[in-house]
């Protein structure tokens, strides 16, 4: 039932309406609306009940294990939410003078400094509002850097074939062409291909480390040298920062510019699709180009930097201060963890991933890279199972839902056939991981004995498998009552 089905002409959530009305007589008639917008006309209880019920149709971290690779679905501490939502913080208008927001700005400045420390970068701007937005800012800075030196022939961004789709898309939005390079059999960048790809046209290389294949690029020192020797800059996609937080810093690996996904590593909620926060960190030579605003500390007075402070900045990413409330949640998380807690993140994320990998291997699952250590995530390939039983990674994923586990990431990265990219995160207990292994074993047995059962999954959710082809062919993107 849609909220529109509850609607009755004339019904209102009266307590939410201003007491008095206001006149609009001074407005020109031709600019006024002729027909009132057909929003729902419902009571407050209708709304509360309808949306509470809808929430119950979701899987979430708070209700299920959610081992979604590349997404770092760790527990989102509740204090981060309640402290970011203290009423004075919520009431502050973004264009208020800095004097009225020293509590907020102090927190922002301290977060900025902590992010510098954990990434080993010389400067951080928290303007970007998600990972892809950070990628855009990072690539735009690379371009601004080359352009400022008159090095304008560098118009090509190198991206490994295992990279997330946002990497090539962000490079194109900065006016670059994309050159893809392959991955070798051990899951590492093919160095020979990289050597052949670089040249005077190279603006840079975009990389995640550990890669989206769940393994650490052991030759990062060589990669760094090849790109820098060719005059390019090195971009770090921080989606996998949880694997190395407190262990290795992108700055120490030689990266010139990075973004972080605070909605992954710093445990701000994913919110059913966002909001995130994608701060960028830069090495010394990119400092002048950082997006504004960032927070400055002038002898204990905190203020937002403007164009006057950074005349060479790539500019602004949002109308205000990025996703400030998300940054506040990340700040609270950082204070709760502290230094020791930061060092522990990668350790326990890696422990959980390697444990899960060992147990699944023992249970007869094929690993994409059996010779390698898992980072914070790893890949199981179901190619053999598909060939013998017809059960695909998608079918397997859907059956996991029936057993009360959110599915791992499927069909990404695209180069491993029938892949499940599994990321348990550090906040899950051994018992939960064991329960997941049991479900995996059960489903594998089902696939071998009654494949149709798995192919028809899920059975226990609000809907069964949905017709995506019809969704795209017979577009129904907004409700229209049938007369």
């Amino acid at each position, binding site marked *: 039932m849609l909220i529109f089905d509850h609607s009755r002409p004339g019904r209102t959530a009266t307590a939410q309406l201003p007491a008095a009305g206001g006149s609009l007589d001074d407005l020109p008639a031709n600019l006024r609306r002729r027909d009132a917008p057909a929003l729902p006309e419902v009571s407050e209880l209708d709304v509360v009940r309808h949306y509470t019920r809808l929430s119950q149709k979701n899987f979430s971290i708070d209700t299920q294990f959610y081992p979604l690779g590349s997404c770092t679905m760790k527990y989102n501490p509740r204090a981060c939410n309640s*402290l970011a939502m203290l009423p004075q913080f919520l009431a502050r208008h973004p264009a208020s003078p800095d004097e009225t927001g020293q509590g907020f700005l102090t927190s922002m400045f301290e977060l900025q400094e902590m992010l510098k420390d954990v990434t080993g970068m010389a400067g951080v701007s928290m303007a970007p509002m998600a990972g892809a937005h950070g990628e855009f800012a990072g690539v735009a800075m690379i371009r601004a850097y080359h352009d400022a030196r008159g090095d304008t022939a560098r118009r090509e961004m190198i991206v490994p074939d295992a990279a997330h789709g946002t990497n090539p898309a962000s490079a194109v939005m900065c006016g670059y062409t994309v050159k893809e390079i392959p991955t070798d059999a051990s899951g590492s960048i093919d160095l020979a291909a990289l050597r052949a790809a670089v040249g005077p046209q190279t603006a840079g290389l975009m990389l995640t480390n550990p890669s989206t294949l769940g393994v650490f690029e052991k030759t990062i020192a060589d990669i760094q040298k090849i790109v820098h020797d060719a005059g390019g800059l090195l971009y770090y996609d921080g989606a996998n920062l949880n694997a190395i937080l407190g262990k290795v810093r992108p700055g120490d690996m030689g990266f010139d510019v990075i973004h972080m996904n605070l909605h992954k590593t710093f445990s701000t909620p994913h919110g059913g699709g966002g909001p995130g926060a994608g701060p960028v960190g830069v090495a010394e030579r990119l400092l002048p180009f950082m997006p504004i605003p960032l927070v400055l500390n002038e002898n204990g007075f905190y203020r937002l930097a403007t164009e006057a402070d950074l005349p060479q900045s790539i500019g602004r990413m949002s109308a205000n201060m990025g996703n400030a409330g998300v940054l506040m949640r990340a700040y609270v998380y950082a204070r709760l963890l502290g230094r020791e807690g930061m060092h522990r993140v990668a350790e326990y994320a890696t422990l959980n991933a390697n444990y899960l990998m060992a147990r699944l291997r023992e249970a007869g699952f094929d690993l994409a890279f059996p010779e390698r250590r898992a980072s914070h995530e790893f890949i199981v390939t179901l190619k053999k199972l598909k060939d013998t039983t017809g059960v695909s990674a998608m079918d397997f994923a859907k059956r996991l839902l029936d057993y009360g586990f959110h599915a791992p990431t499927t069909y990404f990265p695209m180069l491993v056939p029938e892949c499940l990219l599994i990321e348990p995160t550090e906040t899950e207990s051994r018992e939960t991981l064991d329960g997941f292994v049991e479900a995996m074993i059960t489903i594998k047995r089902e696939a071998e004995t009654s494949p149709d059962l798995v192919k028809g999954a899920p059975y226990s959710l609000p809907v069964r498998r949905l017709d995506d082809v019809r969704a795209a062919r017979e577009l129904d993107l907004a409700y229209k009552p049938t007369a």
Partner: protein
Amino acid sequence: MPFIPHTEEDVSAMLGAIGAASIEELFDEIPPALKTGKLKDVPDGLPEMAVARLMQERASADGFWSSFIGAGVYEHHIPAAIWQITTRGEFYSAYTPYQAEASQGTLQLIYEYQTMMTRLTGLDVSNASLYDGASALAEAVLMAVRSHKTSRRVLVPKTVHPIYRRVVDTTVKNQGIELVELAYDPTTGHTVLPADPGSFAGLVIPQPNFFGVLEDVHAMTDWAHDKGALAIALVNPTTLAVLEAPGQWGSRSNQGGGADIAVGEGQPLGAPMASGGPYFGFMCCRQAFVRQMPGRIVGRTVDLDGKPGFTLTLQAREQHIRRSKATSNICTNQGLVVTAATQYMALLGPQGLAKVASVSHAGTVALAEKLAAIPGVTRAFTSPYFHEVVLKLNDNARDVLRALRAQGILGGLDISGWYPELGHAILVCVTETKTAADLDHYAQHMERILSKRREAPPCAYKN
């Protein structure tokens, strides 16, 4: 260990299963030279109780203010139910609804949101959100250029929020797109359409514009269409309860005219101001342009048993499928804020939203009249305005605002720096949250401050 459940026994059993002697051994593929030493600038961890105290102290230091600042972000009442439901774990801690069967709550909510937005804007389709109003405008500019066969020029009035214009510039400047600034009439505050604009792909039409002035959106829409360009509406969703929907703009709206794309800042629909975010950008368009739209879109379909359900659709526009040929790089959007906005629109309904808009507007008119009656304060423009107004002062705006601040009043936004031609100018906004007593309080202090400064001008060097 905060948020890590492992006991010592767990760790040794797990290492045993892996066949490793220590956790450190799991990092043996990382070259030792790269390993981080101790972090320097991260302080020791604190228990929740101590962090709570710290944050409460900081919040108290920031305090509460009587704010009359708008400029794209508006202080509206937010019903208590909204964020209680929005922060339920099932919404708060869910991922993007890629596994549709396990995400029907979020997906249905987005479908309802898309429906409400199309009804508010009078357009056919809506996406599931973009980052904020400014970035949504940038995406609309890119979309107009993609949709236009030949031109890479887009006309952007100076009456568009100056920061929005900068965000658009940052976003499109590396793609060979030319942004052409349109002047405004110094008396009316309306955008002036140039006699000879040359070829262009789109015209941005702000309603109300940054000054609060109502543009002649019908003439602007027709003009853009006559020149073969798209009309891009930049609108405040609250005002759409009472102002004409973009889909109805122009004289030919019933023949497929009207604005082609509508974008704006979703913050007024239930998002707290919170020093800048998170908010969300909305984008609606006519059916013909749906395949050029950036961002996620939810569609209704059926499951294996023929039962209705919801799923992400038209994903072939998006980066995870199309990579370098995607319509945009956007992936994570502002889902949770959309969750709040959907409930806000449902709770307010057509009557409630219209009441919020009209009360806000009437308050602005009342305050503008009170202030303009004070010697030294005049309205900057003669045209009708909506819910926000530019006032000229015969005194330094920054100093006057600072004096008001000493009384707990944030009297508006000083826009003199962006528009030096206006002299000392402030942009003032009233919403339904302000009472008649609040308006009187503001006006009394403004009168006192201006007369005091007139009688005893501050020494220049004392500042």
